[in-house]
């Protein structure tokens, strides 16, 4: 048992906590990571859902991790191995055809011609435009948002650089960027394409994980954020051999190799604050650990509303934190399958390749929007929008030979139900998911050996996500960049000296593993090196 004082204690061993630990260790600190669960990974874990069947429980891909982090921590050496599927997205249409997004945009375009000549012609332009804008925005992901009140020289320099890059864009793209951010992703998709199944696929990226439908303004910003992490028109690649758990283990191994300590089964019950500064943490068992700095990779609401004594906090800050929006809308539904689902759209084709990436279920914009409507009134979607993966296709270690695992991110499943509770209605929701998949793969239900549902309540209770929000809070315009989690507190520091945030509730947000952790570690290292060590 490690006693005594630590220079840095990090709460939570998810990708962000582990990346922060690894990078702080490399910067000469000796961070201690405390993880409540018995395994590392947070939302990036591989667990068994049925004897012999394992899958990634929440996050499905590590493809959007900034490459600089992979290099800095030498993750490949620690066992991180990505798999790039041949087809990035398979989206069955209502009429038995399917949209396929390939790695090669020209290949995608030629397939789209069956839906619309115009769309086939436009797709390469779309791909190019996404790449350009993605490349422009990518550096922002690894930038600490500027200080709004007192911009420092560095902030001004970065702003000018960004301004220069912005002005360097072709005028058309510069305007697009300004126009698109606040737009509804349905309008964005319609601006490019005319065929409904393709529009729905594009819109999916704007609403993934969001408490918003494709007609909600600002959903294009969510898409652009994702594009900054992986500008590919087909969405992110990068499944992990062994599932996301293996990715987290490689992060933990890298952190340990750099000198960090990672303890599992160590639940932090509270953060101790003395004289307005973080002094350490108290574990659920009563053990106290003193620390020079406490870094929370938990979501902002858990951190401030649960771990820190309200008496130690500024009431205005607390009030704003209470208003931070993090109502989850995602349920994960995992299936152990006796065989590969047979999609009507793939009859007589090489289904294995087509199904190896992501599978988008939602054939029209209106269908996605209707799924959201239910959530607005406190019910789950009777016909949910689903994104599925069958990781066992590319990684046979996850399921017994000939069988498969399928993981479905299903929306919308609002955290608070108006009628009944998630405990009562869990199976009903799973049936709705099976139903929409069966519309495209009629024999699907017959192949199910076991089902495991993670409702937003489970995401909160088991995985510690307040409100069950997989991104630690909505990616809405008012909760991004200099406003994530709150305006004035976007630089990983908090009103409590020595207490930092490094989770997805900080810029750049969820779905980009490690980016927040890396940014936070940079700011923390700077502070700790500058300030004389306390006591």
């Amino acid at each position: 048992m490690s006693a005594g004082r630590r220079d840095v204690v990090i709460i939570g061993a998810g990708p962000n906590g582990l990346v922060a630990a690894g990078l702080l260790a490399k910067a000469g600190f000796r961070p201690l990571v405390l993880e409540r669960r018995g395994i590392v990974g947070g939302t990036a874990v591989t667990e068994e859902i049925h004897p012999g069947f394992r899958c990634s429980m929440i996050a499905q891909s590590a493809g959007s991790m900034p490459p600089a982090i992979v290099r800095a921590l030498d993750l490949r050496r620690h066992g991180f191995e990505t798999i790039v599927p041949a087809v990035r997205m398979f989206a069955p249409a209502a009429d038995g055809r399917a949209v396929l997004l390939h790695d090669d945009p020209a290949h995608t375009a030629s397939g789209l011609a069956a839906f619309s000549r115009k769309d086939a012609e436009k797709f390469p332009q779309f791909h190019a435009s996404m790449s350009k804008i993605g490349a422009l925005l990518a550096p922002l992901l690894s930038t600490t948002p500027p200080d709004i009140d007192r911009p420092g020289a560095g902030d001004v320099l970065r702003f000018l650089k960004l301004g220069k890059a912005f002005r360097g864009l072709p005028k058309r793209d510069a305007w697009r960027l300004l126009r698109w951010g606040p737009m509804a992703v349905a309008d964005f998709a319609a601006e490019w394409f005319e065929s409904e199944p393709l529009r729905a696929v594009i819109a999916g990226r704007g609403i993934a994980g969001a408490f918003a439908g494709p007609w909600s303004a600002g959903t294009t910003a969510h898409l652009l954020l994702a594009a900054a992490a992986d500008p590919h028109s087909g969405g992110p690649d990068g499944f992990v051999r062994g599932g996301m758990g293996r990715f987290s283990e490689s992060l933990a191994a890298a952190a340990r190799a750099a000198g960090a300590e990672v303890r599992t089964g160590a639940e932090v019950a509270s953060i101790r604050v003395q004289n307005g500064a973080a002094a350490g943490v108290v574990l659920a068992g009563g053990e106290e650990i003193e620390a020079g700095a406490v870094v929370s990779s938990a979501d902002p609401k858990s951190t401030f509303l649960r771990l820190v004594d309200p008496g130690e906090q500024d009431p205005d800050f607390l009030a704003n934190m209470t208003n931070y929006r993090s109502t989850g809308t995602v349920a994960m539904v995992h299936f152990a399958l006796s065989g590969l689902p047979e999609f009507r759209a793939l009859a007589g084709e090489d289904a294995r390749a087509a199904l190896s990436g992501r599978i988008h279920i939602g054939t029209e914009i209106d269908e996605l929007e209707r799924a959201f409507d239910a959530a607005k009134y406190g019910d789950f979607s009777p016909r949910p929008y689903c994104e599925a993966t069958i990781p066992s296709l590319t990684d046979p270690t996850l399921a017994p030979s000939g069988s498969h695992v399928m993981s479905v991110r299903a929306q919308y499943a609002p955290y608070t139900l108006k009628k009944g509770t998630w405990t009562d209605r869990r199976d009903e929701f799973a049936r709705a998911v099976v139903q929409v998949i069966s519309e495209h793969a009629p024999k699907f239900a017959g192949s199910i050996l076991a089902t495991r549902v993670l409702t937003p309540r489970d995401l909160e209770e088991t995985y510690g996500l307040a409100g069950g929000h997989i991104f630690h809070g909505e990616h809405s315009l008012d909760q991004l960049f200099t406003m994530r989690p709150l305006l004035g507190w976007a630089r990983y520091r908090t009103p409590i000296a020595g207490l930092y945030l490094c989770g997805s509730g900080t810029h750049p947000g969820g779905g980009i593993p490690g980016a927040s952790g890396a940014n936070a570690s940079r700011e923390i290292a700077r502070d700790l090196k500058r300030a004389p060590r306390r006591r």
Partner: protein
Amino acid sequence: MFPGFKFSVASYVVSLLRPEIIRDLDLPRHGLEILPLDGTFTPMENGDYLWRVNDHGRTRREIARHSKVDAEAYEEYGKAMVEMGRFVKPILSMTPPDPTSLDPSGLFELLRIGRRFQKLRPDDKQNQVQLMTMSAVDFLDRWFETDVLKATMSASGIIGTFLGVRSPGTAYVLLHHYMGEIDGAFRSWGFARGGTGAISEAIAAAAREAGVEIRTEAPIAQIRVRGGRATGVVLESGEEIEAAVVSSSLDPRLTFLKMVGRKELPDEFVEDLERYKYRGSSGKVNLALDGLPEFTALPGSGAHLRGAISISPSVEYMERAYDDAKYGRFSRRPYMDVVIPSLTDPSVAPPGKHVMSCFVQYAPYHLKEGNWDDQREAFGDAVIDALAVHAPNIRERILHRQVLTPLDIERIFGLTEGNIFQGELTLEQLFFLRPAPGWAQYRTPIRGLYMCGSATHPGGGIMGAPGKNAAGVLLSDMKRRRA
């Protein structure tokens, strides 16, 4: 319209005419008289009501009847909105800069806004940002807990938009409506004596006095362009009028695609104009009444009928009204803002009789099934049904009913797709993006042709502001040319 009854056919309240315009044009002298519209009465589904009036104390007590916390918050909210209004006001009267241009003056303008933003108090900063991006309901959720209060307040966030009270971006429109001021008092609305037409007549009188000639019954068929320059207009009668400068207060679809013609315009500009969203979403129902309606929630013909009557009983009601429209139907249970101008200005109806104007949303211009000419009366019936829920005797009182669908609004007033603001007030169509990227400074790709209507910054609903801004740009261009 109906003998003895006078309606303000399309718009119905005066709220947003900028006070400086009233002053500059000396409109009261030209006959403009604004009669205050006191309060908003919102009947609820449970038989209760919420009645807010201009008297602060009374409103506070009324809100406290629903929630004590909200009564406190209402004060703070009002103060915060005034702060926000102060911040936004100068932006409304500026010519939007071009952020993609290399011209440093544009950048400087943006920096100036940035600097003013920096000077706001932390809370106001937060409010400002959230106001620009959040939904009206999310924004109001931060202050209030009473559902009906949020519902009725959120209504001003969706007027004239094809958005719901839960759609991000609607909080901003909330502020737009807060900018309405009469004689400097924030958030007060009124009727013009003699109907809204009286405003236009007062403005016209002021303009004539200043030397303007106004010809009515002179529809323009074409804007003449030669060598990339506007040279005049051709009327539908065939009459040609040469001009050094043509300024259009019509929306860009009519101005450019109809009157100028695509071949005179750059392709990208045409593409942008085609993408510009109108999506009219409101209709109007005018009723001639035999007597006053009686609301179950508050019987009698008290002062609650003299203000606005808002049919916005709950947030869910508002949002469901939007859901219908999203899928191409008019709302079966629409949101309505109802006024009875004859109570304040008896000149508009015969003695003992009344006129009632209902602004109705949502009535989407594009219907999924059928067309507006077939659906007009069904829409009118839905409006009466929704009113009758709260005022069951309304049906017996109706002498005459006039239903204006978005198609009618387009036909009568030349508003494309019936959008009362000449294009949606969404973030991607505001400020330097209104109406098209790169063309937000009232100038157009055709030299000598200007835009001065609601499709330019700061948009519809703030009467006269685009015209005033455009006049400034036009004057400075003309001076430069003369120099």
